[in-house]
C-alpha cells in the first residue's frame, strides 16, 4: 500500500452519499456501513487504477452493491425469522420515520437499489445503470415500479388496490 494521494479528499467528498445509498439498499445501518467501508477499502487498495476511472464513485457503488447482494442471500433467512419474532436485526436510522424505512426496505432488491442510487446516491439514470449492470431503460422501469409500490404503501388511497406488495427479501 504505497502512494494514495488524492484518496482522502475523494473519500471525504463521496463517503456520505455512498453510505446513505448503501444503507438503504442494505435495509440496515450496520450492513450498509459494512459494505461502504469495505467498498472504500477496496478502492484504497486499487487507488492507482480507481482514480483514473471515468467514474470512481460508480465503481465504489458497484462494489458495494455486489457485497450486499452476496451478503443478502445469507442474511435473508435470518431477517425473515427475526421479523416473525417481532424483532429487528438492524434498526432504522433514528431520524427516519419507521413506516418510510419499512416501505423502502420492502421494495424488491433491484427497485431498492435503483431508488437508493438514484435518489440518495445522486447518480444519473445512466450511472445507476452502469453500477447495477443493467440497461438505462431498466432503471427507468425499476424506478417507476418503486414509486408505484411506495405510493401503494404510503399514500392514504392506494393507486391500485389490487397490487399486493411482496418483497424478494
Amino acid at each position, binding site marked *: 500500500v504505497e502512494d*494514495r494521494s488524492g*484518496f482522502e479528499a475523494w473519500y471525504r467528498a463521496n463517503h456520505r452519499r455512498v453510505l*446513505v445509498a448503501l*444503507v438503504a439498499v442494505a435495509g440496515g*445501518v450496520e450492513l450498509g456501513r459494512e459494505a*461502504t*467501508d469495505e467498498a472504500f477499502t477496496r478502492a484504497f487498495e486499487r487507488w492507482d487504477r480507481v482514480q483514473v476511472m471515468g467514474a470512481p464513485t460508480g465503481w465504489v457503488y458497484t462494489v458495494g452493491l455486489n457485497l450486499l447482494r452476496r451478503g443478502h442471500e445469507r442474511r435473508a433467512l435470518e431477517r425473515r425469522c427475526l421479523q*416473525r419474532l417481532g424483532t429487528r436485526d438492524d434498526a432504522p436510522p433514528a431520524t427516519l420515520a419507521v413506516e418510510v424505512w419499512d416501505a423502502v426496505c420492502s421494495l*424488491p432488491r433491484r427497485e431498492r437499489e435503483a431508488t437508493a442510487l438514484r435518489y440518495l446516491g445522486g447518480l444519473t439514470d445512466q450511472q445507476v445503470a452502469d453500477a447495477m449492470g443493467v440497461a438505462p431503460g431498466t432503471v427507468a422501469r425499476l424506478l417507476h415500479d418503486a414509486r408505484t409500490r411506495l405510493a401503494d404503501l404510503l399514500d392514504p388511497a392506494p393507486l391500485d388496490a389490487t397490487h399486493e406488495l411482496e418483497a*424478494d427479501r
Partner: protein
Amino acid sequence: MIDLDDLLAPLADADLGDPLPVDQIRSRAESRAAGGRRRRLAIVGATAAFALVIGAALVVAERGRPTGVDAVDSATTLATEPEPAPVDDLVADLPVGRFPYDMLVEGGDLWVLNNTSRDVTRISIAEHRVVSTIAVQGGAPGGNANRLVATAGAVWVAGVSTPDGPGIARIDTATDVVTVVPTAFEPIAISARGGELWVGGQRTVGSGGDERLDATVQRIDVGNLEADEPIGLAVGRVPVDVALTDDGLWVLVQATGPSPLLRVDPATGEVTDRIDVDAAAVRLVATDDEVVVGADTSQLGGRTGAVTLVDPATRTVVATAPLDARPEAIVLVDDLIVTSGLRALDRRTLAERPLPARYSGLGFAMTGDGTSLWASVPGSPDGSAAVRRLSIDDVRAAVAEEAELGVPAGWQLIDYGELRFAVPATWEVPVTESCASGAPGVVLLPTRSTSTCSAVNPIPLPESVVWIVESDPQPGGVPAELGTLDATTFGSLACTTCRPTYHLPSGLQISVTGPEADAVLASFTRSGVDQALADGPLADRSGWRTVAFGGVSVEVPPGWPVVDLPGSDTITTTPDGTVTGMSGRTDPGGCGGDRFGETGYAYVGSSQVVSSCPATFVLPVHPGVGLWIRSFPDVGHAMVEARPYDGPSEVDLEVVSGPLNRSVREPVLDVAVDGPDGPVLVTIGARSDPATIRAILASIRVPG
C-alpha cells in the same frame, strides 16, 4: 405519484455515524496486503517483540477479563493446549503470482512457479509467509515457465529464454541466486533424480526439404551443469512431461488424440516401449511402482479429463478413470491420487473417492509434503492468486466421511433442519428464501441463476430448484416416499409435466424441479440432528476430555482440539491505553462464515475479536462437525421455540430452535442447560455422528 426526493430526504439527512477514518482504511488494506490473517498475527507478534525490547511505544497485554474455561478433568490442561494446526488455511497471497503453474516443497519451503509473471514465490512453511519472489526470466522475451523440479541445494525451472537461446533456470536454495543453463531446445518438461536432470522439448531436425519437428530429451549434469547431446525420439510432437525413475525415463508426448507414453533407456537413449493413452495428455507422475497419466478428454465428449494408471513392470495400462476436471496437477497421497479440481481417486483401482464440494476448483497446481496438500486457489480478476494448505489427514477424513454418507461423486450433502439431502456440487447453496405468498421457506438455486422467485420478479425461476416451505401440517393426502421419509402428496404422482409437492408430518413442504429432480428427491433422509434426537446408540466416551464453561461441563471426543476463544484474545494498545489492534480466534461462524469445519473442534466461551470480513461474505457449505459451549446471553440470535430433550441425560436440557440452526449454512443442534451462573448453550454441528451427539448430550453435567 409520490415524490421520492421528498420522501427520502430524511434518510439523506439521517445521522449514520462518522466515516471510517482513512487511517483505519489504510490499516485494513495493509493488513490484507501483508497476506491475510495469519500474517497479521505475525505482524502483531513482531510488534510485541519490538515493544518488549525497547520498552516503549506499544504495550501488548493479554485481555483482562478472566478466561471462561475451566478444566474439570485433570487430564484437560487448556492453559497449555497449543492452538490447533491450521486447517484449510490460506497461508500466503502471491502478489505477483499470476497463474501458479507448478509447485513443490524443498528444504522446508514451498516453491511456487508463477507462469504469467515468470517468477517463483518462496514461502516458508514454518512461518507461513512469503520469503522471497525470485524472477526467473532469462533476459529475453518468451520462455514457458511451467515446471519445477528440485535437486540437492537447487530448484530448477523449465524453461526460460535468454538472448542466446532457451534454457532452464537454477535457483540456489541457499542464496536465491539464479543461474541459467542453456539447452538445445525450448524445455517444456523437466525431471530430476540423484545427480541427473532431464529436460524434454521439441526441436527441428533434418535439413533442406526434410526438416521436421521431433520430440527431444536431454540430460544435464547438475554438478557441472554440462548438457549431453540431445536425444531425438522420432515423434513429431511436444513432450509435456518427463519423469525419471529407477525403471527408466518416462516421456509423455502431447497429441490431440491418443498420446504416446514412451519409456526411454537413459543409458542408451533408446525408446524401449510405447503405450498410447487414449486422450490428449497433460500431466505425468511416476514412481518406481506406478506411472500415472492425466489427460484432457474434452475433445472426446463426455467428461473433461481422465487419469490412466500404467504398471511400469508390465508396461501396460492397468485402469483409466474419467474425471470432471482436467488433471493439470497430480499428487500421490498415501492410497489416493489427488488431481486438480480437487478430485480423489483410489491409487490402486482408480475408483473415485468423492470429496466435499468446498474443495472444488482448487489445485490447478499442487504438491504434497507428507502432512499437507498444497493447492493453488483460482486467481481473482485483479490478478492475485494464492496457495492453500490442506491437512492430508483432513482430506482423507473428508473422503471417508463422504463415502460413509453415501454422497454420489460430484454431489454435495445439505443439512436443513430435520432434513438431509444431496444436490449437484455445482449448485450454489443456499441462495435465497422463498418470496412467494409470504410463507417462509428456502429455495436452493443452481449456480449462475439470477432469479429469486416468481410472484413479483419477472425473471422466471431457473430450471433446477429445491424449494422447501415451512407450513402447518396438512392432514390427508396420498402416501408417498420422499427418499427414506414418509410423506404425502395432494397432486397426482402420475403428472409428467409437473412435480408433486411432498408434505412431511412436521409441516415442511418440498418440491424439486429440473433434470436432477428425481435424484435429489431420492436422496432425502433425516438430518444428523434429527437422527441424534431420536433413540439410538451412544458413542463410547472412553478417552473423552472434559471441558467446562459457566459451571457446566461437557465431554468431547479425544480427537477434537479444544479452542479457548476468550483465552486466545490479544489486545494491542499504546501506552495511554488506546486499543490499536486485536488478534486471536474469532467466534465460529463470524462474519457470515461457517460455524464448524469438517473435523471436530470444541470451542469454549465467546471471543471479543471481530474478524475483518473476507472479500466475499458467502462461504461454501461445510460438513459441520464440532461443539461450541458459551453463555446464553452471548448467543447472537433469538430463539423460536424450546422443548425438553427426552433422550439420555442427567440434567434437564432444552432443545432450542432459532433461525440459524435451520439455515443450510449453519446446520446445528442448540441445547440449553441451566448453569449456576445462568443459562449455557451447547451447540453441536449437525454433521457430527448422531451417536456422538447423543453421547455429548449424555455427558453434560452441572457439578455442585
